[in-house]
């Protein structure tokens, strides 16, 4: 189990290098682009492709920290509700006369607090698994959002706020530029810092990590809080894109984000996975969905195709692990 991740200490072999999950993802990515371009005359166009990223990158901000959570062997299914709650709080505060930048800060704080609560509950009640804790908070956060807005919509944000979701910087969508920077930061955090090492260590064996002096509880609280914060960032983008908000927005976002992470090769049993895989799979899922939309495939069939892609990829990855084991 533990030998899978410590790549730096294994001696380099060409075979293992090319049998990595990320190569398969890259292949899928290239294939999807070729097929999309072949099917729709509108696909292979710089503007179209840049525009396409604006449609799915909001979820990607959740997928990045979610990778950390899943490497722990945990899961956070409350993120969709956190998006709704933080967005609703922002809208209500703004409509009550609070300046927009303060309302945006409040949105980020709500996300932070929601994540912090998840983290604290998970480390204080160890007998409960993360899925149970976040299932409860998922219902709780969504419930609070409904109490605040009662099935209504709120909006009327200032004009400049729509820049987040719709704006361009020198021809590049703002959301894409910010995502690129954020993704680099997260990749650095996971692969080049002791923080990242500890995340893998906990995912492989939490007890052993604790005995080796890793503050497991503190690490978990930090990662869940970070997830909450990034979820609020996603909430800002989604709200900006819609120009108004309701308590029922972002339903199903948790599953989309988790699907991106799992397709990226992060194992739900913990301890395994890399950022580059997650980033590739974000673009695979997003561009596949967009491409299918461009040729007007009906939305139910799109769901089936993405489901199939997920099943096949998880099957291959488990096969991959088994093959790797039999060779050792």
């Amino acid at each position, binding site marked *: 189990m533990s030998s899978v991740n410590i790549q730096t200490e294994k001696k380099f072999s060409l075979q293992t290098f090319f*049998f990595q999950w990320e190569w*398969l993802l890259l*292949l*899928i990515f290239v*294939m*999807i682009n070729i*097929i999309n371009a*072949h*099917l*729709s*005359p*509108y*696909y292979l*166009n710089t503007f*179209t492709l840049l*525009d*396409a990223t*604006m*449609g799915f990158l909001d979820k990607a901000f959740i997928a990045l920290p979610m990778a950390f959570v899943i490497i722990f062997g945990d899961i956070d299914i409350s993120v969709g509700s956190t998006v709704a709650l933080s967005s609703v709080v922002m809208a209500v505060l703004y409509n009550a006369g609070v300046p927009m930048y303060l309302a945006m800060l409040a949105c980020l704080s709500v996300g932070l607090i929601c994540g912090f609560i998840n983290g604290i509950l998970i480390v204080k009640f160890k007998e409960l698994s993360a899925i149970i804790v976040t299932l409860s908070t998922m219902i709780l956060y969504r419930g609070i959002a409904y109490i605040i807005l009662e*099935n*209504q*919509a709120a*909006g009327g944000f200032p004009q400049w706020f*729509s820049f987040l*979701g*719709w704006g361009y910087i020198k021809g590049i969508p703002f959301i894409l530029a910010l995502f690129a920077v954020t993704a680099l930061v997260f990749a650095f955090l996971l692969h080049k810092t002791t923080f990242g090492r500890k995340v893998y260590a906990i995912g492989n064996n939490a007890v052993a990590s604790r005995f080796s002096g890793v503050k497991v509880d503190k690490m978990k609280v930090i990662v869940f809080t970070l997830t909450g914060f990034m979820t609020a960032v996603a909430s800002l983008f*989604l709200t900006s*894109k*819609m*120009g*108004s908000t*309701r308590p*029922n*927005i*972002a*339903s*199903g976002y948790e599953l989309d984000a988790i699907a991106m992470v799992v397709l990226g090769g992060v194992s739900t049993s913990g301890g395994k996975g890399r950022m580059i895989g997650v980033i590739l799979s974000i673009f695979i899922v997003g561009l596949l*969905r*967009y491409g*299918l*939309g*461009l*040729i*007007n*495939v*009906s*939305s*139910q*069939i*799109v*769901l089936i*195709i993405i489901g*199939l892609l997920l099943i*096949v990829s998880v099957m*291959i990855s488990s*096969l991959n692990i088994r*093959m790797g084991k039999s060779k050792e």
Partner: protein
Amino acid sequence: MKKLFVGILCLVMMISFAGTSAAAQTAGRYALIVKSAGNPYNENEMKGFAKAIKEIGGTAILKAPAEPTAEAQIMMIEQLIAQRVDAIAIAGNDPDALQPALTKAMKRGIKVLSLDSAVNPQSRMVHVNQADSEKIGRSLIQGIYEMIGGEGQIAILSATSQAANQNTWIEWMKKELKKEKYNKVELVKVAYGDDLRDKSVSETEALLKSYPNLRGIIAPTTVGIAAAGKVLSDKELKGKVELTGLGLPSEMAEYITNGICDWMYLWNPIDIGYLAGYTAHALVNGEITGKVGDTFTAGDLGKKEVIAVGGGTEIMLGAPFKFDAGNIDEWKEVY
């Protein structure tokens, strides 16, 4: 490993070829986005739209999101902008949230109109309205008043809380209820079934549980009224709780025949789609611009005129039609 690669490749190829037929190109391409998939009312709208576009000689692109959300519709609008379609007709899941996406479409020269459920006037050139909203709202209250014998608690089972059409009708219902005649009628709750069958069923059950003295339910949505009809039938509440609203004859025939619902209203959803198709065509070829007083010929429906309603302009289909035990059998085969 190799076999698996080949397997995936085949799968993706299969999927991709399944979709090629939709990518055909012709002179005029007209897109319709309805509220959600799997709703017979929406399917009939699409049928009518496709019929109109076929008569015109263009290509119809029909889209229905899996969930009745504005998020999903925004994504579809962007895909249509990228395809450079000539016109987008949309039944909005939210009056305001689609504004950035639809104004972007209009800036790129795409003609935008809403039908059935309006988006706000800034996001569209014209709206195709099924029937006079005031008349719908008022006649539903008058109907339930008669059914419950003039007194008791009533509730409304609507679609999503952001559906512009339902909200307008509910406004008019509330205005009608202010009349002195309705002093003994109490509107206890507006519930939202989100046009999802299971949620509409559970909302109906919750209404019956929370208000044991409930005498009537108005469901101004085809999904809601069918769900409520099913619950009232299953619980054998005929005569105890009355039901009216807007329903599809094919879905409601059973409940009208067995007396759960004495009568209900609707217009022909095929005609709305059809009218939207011709309106889109008139916008594209410059026959109308969406200004008050513009006129055009909408195929079999004859001459139509653009009128001002609220802050925007509309094209009206006609009056709502009443369905009861006397005529339901002949209509249930039609739609």
